[in-house]
């Protein structure tokens, strides 16, 4: 069957419109990549759009030649993996628990979690707490506090609540206990939400710098975000603090783009792998009502 003309026109416009949106969202990123490979003169002159002008690898070379960069990069990967694992275990189990209406004191647990969304101890008390727990200058100061994001917790809770109760009843009849149900029935059916949560948590942890800035005093423990942040600061304040290092007198915009590219690439690479789980209809047809 042929599509009516009106629909074809509509589709044509649709394609053009969506391509425009793609371009608008993609352009800043391409521009950043192009800037990271361009010479300072061309960047300040505004010659760079999506093609690098005056090809320049100096900033990449300087950054990557620093062994501290790689040490800190390793830290970031480690912190992200550990923190995301801890967060996922805690969030999933907590969310599953409070998703069951028959749990006694359920509202109390929910209120407890939600309370922390609005009230916190504040910066100094947190710092004092972490310090007296002996977690300062260890990885645990970064991965344990705020392991559960209440926002994510609530999303997961409502996801679990929407899971057909009949599935679990069937599992009980087949002889599974609570843990078995969670691990063998619920979680395999929740890949979509798990993938989303892993993505949320890992992006947050990957980008995190504030916790590390607060609780770490040793350079070899810093995540790469702090390393790069300090480098940008050095580039933009070299003039006022009395020292521009000779081989790194690139202008700030070049350094900024380089750091963005370096820090965003790995996490960008995660998306395609996670994306295949963003599928709707996993539950389709599993229950007949």
């Amino acid at each position: 069957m042929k599509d009516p003309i009106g629909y074809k026109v509509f589709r044509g416009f649709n394609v053009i419109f969506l391509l425009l949106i793609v371009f608008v969202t993609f352009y800043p990123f391409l521009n950043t990549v192009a800037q990271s490979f361009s010479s300072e003169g061309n960047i300040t002159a505004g010659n760079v759009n999506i093609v690098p002008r005056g090809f320049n690898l100096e900033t990449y070379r300087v950054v990557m030649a620093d062994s501290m960069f790689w040490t800190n990069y390793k830290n970031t990967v480690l912190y992200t993996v550990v923190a995301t694992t801890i967060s996922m275990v805690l969030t999933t189990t907590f969310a599953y628990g409070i998703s069951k209406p028959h749990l006694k004191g359920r509202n109390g647990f929910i209120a407890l979690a939600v309370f922390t969304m609005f009230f916190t101890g504040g910066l100094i008390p947190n710092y004092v707490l972490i310090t007296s727990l002996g977690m300062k200058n260890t990885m645990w100061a970064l991965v344990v506090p705020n392991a559960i994001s209440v926002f994510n917790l609530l999303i997961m809770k409502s996801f679990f609540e929407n899971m057909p109760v009949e599935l679990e009843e069937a599992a009980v009849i087949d002889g599974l206990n609570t843990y078995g149900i969670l691990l063998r029935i619920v979680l395999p059916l929740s890949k979509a939400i798990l993938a989303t949560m892993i993505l949320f948590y890992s992006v947050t942890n990957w980008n995190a710098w504030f916790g590390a800035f607060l609780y770490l005093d040793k350079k070899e423990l810093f995540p790469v975000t702090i390393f790069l942040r300090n480098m940008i600061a050095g580039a933009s304040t070299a003039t006022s603090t009395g020292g521009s290092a000779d081989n790194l007198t690139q202008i700030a915009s070049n350094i900024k783009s380089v750091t963005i590219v370096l820090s965003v690439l790995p996490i960008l690479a995660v998306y395609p792998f996670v994306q295949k789980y963003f599928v709707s209809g996993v539950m389709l047809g599993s229950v007949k009502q």
Partner: protein
Amino acid sequence: MMRTNYLRVVAVAAAFAMAGALTACGGTPASKSTAGADVSVGAMKDYKADAAFKATAPLSVSILYSDHPNYPLKKDWLLWTKLTSLTNVTLAPTVVPMSDYSQKRSLLVGAGDAPMIIPKTYPGQESAYVASGAILPVSDYVKLMPNYQKKIKDWGLEKEIDGLRQADGKYYLLPGLHEEIWPDYTLAVRTDVFEKAGIQVPKTWDELTSALKKLKATNPTPYPFSDRYKGGALLTMSSPGFDSAMGAGTFHIGDGTRFDKTAGKFVYAAAQPQYKKMLGYFSSLVSAGLMDPSSFTQEDDQAIQKFVSGKSFVISANSQDIGTYRDLMDESLGAGKYAIKKITVPAGPAGEIMGGSRLENGVMINAQAAKSKNFVAMMQFVDWLYYSDAGQEFAKWGVQGTTYNKDAKGLRKLAPTIDYNGLNPAGTKDLRKDYGFSGGVFAYGGSTELLQSMMIPEEVDFQKAMKATKTPEPLAPPAPLSDTDREQATLISTPLQDYVDQGTLQFILGKRPLSQFDAFVAELKAKGMDTYVEMKNKAYEDFKKK
């Protein structure tokens, strides 16, 4: 960006001050602690000015270290090993990235977890911590510091030091001391273009106007003057010559007040006729098309690009900027096809006056240090490292015979293999990166001779020219606000300053005619200017009585 950071710091610090005050109620006040236990373990009994310091017992002292990305800290620096072998003191640094140094400092001081020595604190920044009691009132202990006292006496810095005093009459910061004012920001001009047009380098702001007019007539350029730093450096450097005190953006001068000598009291600088005159001058440049109106809004990179590509001929610069411009111009115009220079700051209607302070960023001491058994030795160490000639030379030049050599005339020269900022281009190693010397944490202040010993000859010439032509601005008398007043003053002065920034821009760009200056002053009054100035004057009177 610095400004918002500053605001954040103030806000955070205020919160810390409160937190600190609360804990102080429960804990023991630091001042009591000196009595009782012995605090002089490791101290030298006969320590005096210009003597070498070596602790009689090895000790370790914690220090907050601002890590500069261009010369990141290394544990095997000669700086650390030599310092320990010279003084018997091992420094244990808490490494903080330079980008967020002040925030971390506030956090650590607020949480009572600060290292004993807290360097890189600018005069004024310490005020926020005073109420918490977490910082040592060092003025009570300067008797332990003979070099520090000697420098103040020799260089006549007593008045500057008085300016650091808080409402309790004590001061909490050991500032970096300069023998003389060290002017840095000025205008850089394209001397080749000036010569070609037959223009003398301008000595006054009026001469600058006529020079710009000629430049505009002889060159096909929209604006011969396009400034960077959002005009902040320009307004700051020109202020003293107009008998005013006003910067903009990150360059605000002090707290916006100015001491009026004839009236014997503080006034709000931006509400004075002198300020009007200054605004009038710059708005005349803009309206005549001599100065780029975007000077006050564009990013630095854009202004630099106009200058290095030959579209503009005048721009603000400090000694580092000149090098940056040259690097860029070698690329854009070609080496040898241009000439630029820092000129002496043009004189204004008030004459050849130069602003600036002889105090630099300095050191705060954790109040808990006074309880430490090594307290006296630590103070002697700080005194030696930061204030003795030998200590300052060590921090800046390193070790004689290793990193530098001295000839018969006392002229220092870097070792053949070592470079510093292009001073010895043949050197393959870097004095800061590979040895740790001349870094921002330890090396600053000192005698003019020491300061200029590492400058390129061109910069020394600029310094000499400034010194020869300019008289330093008189110092304002101390007027320290009490803790409660300070909080209120900040609440008033921050919006006031923002409003002045807006007004300044409107007047200079001609969006508001100068005939409305009186209305502007009335608006400032409506924003609490009088209350603010009154507070300041009251503090001034109170302090005078003490």
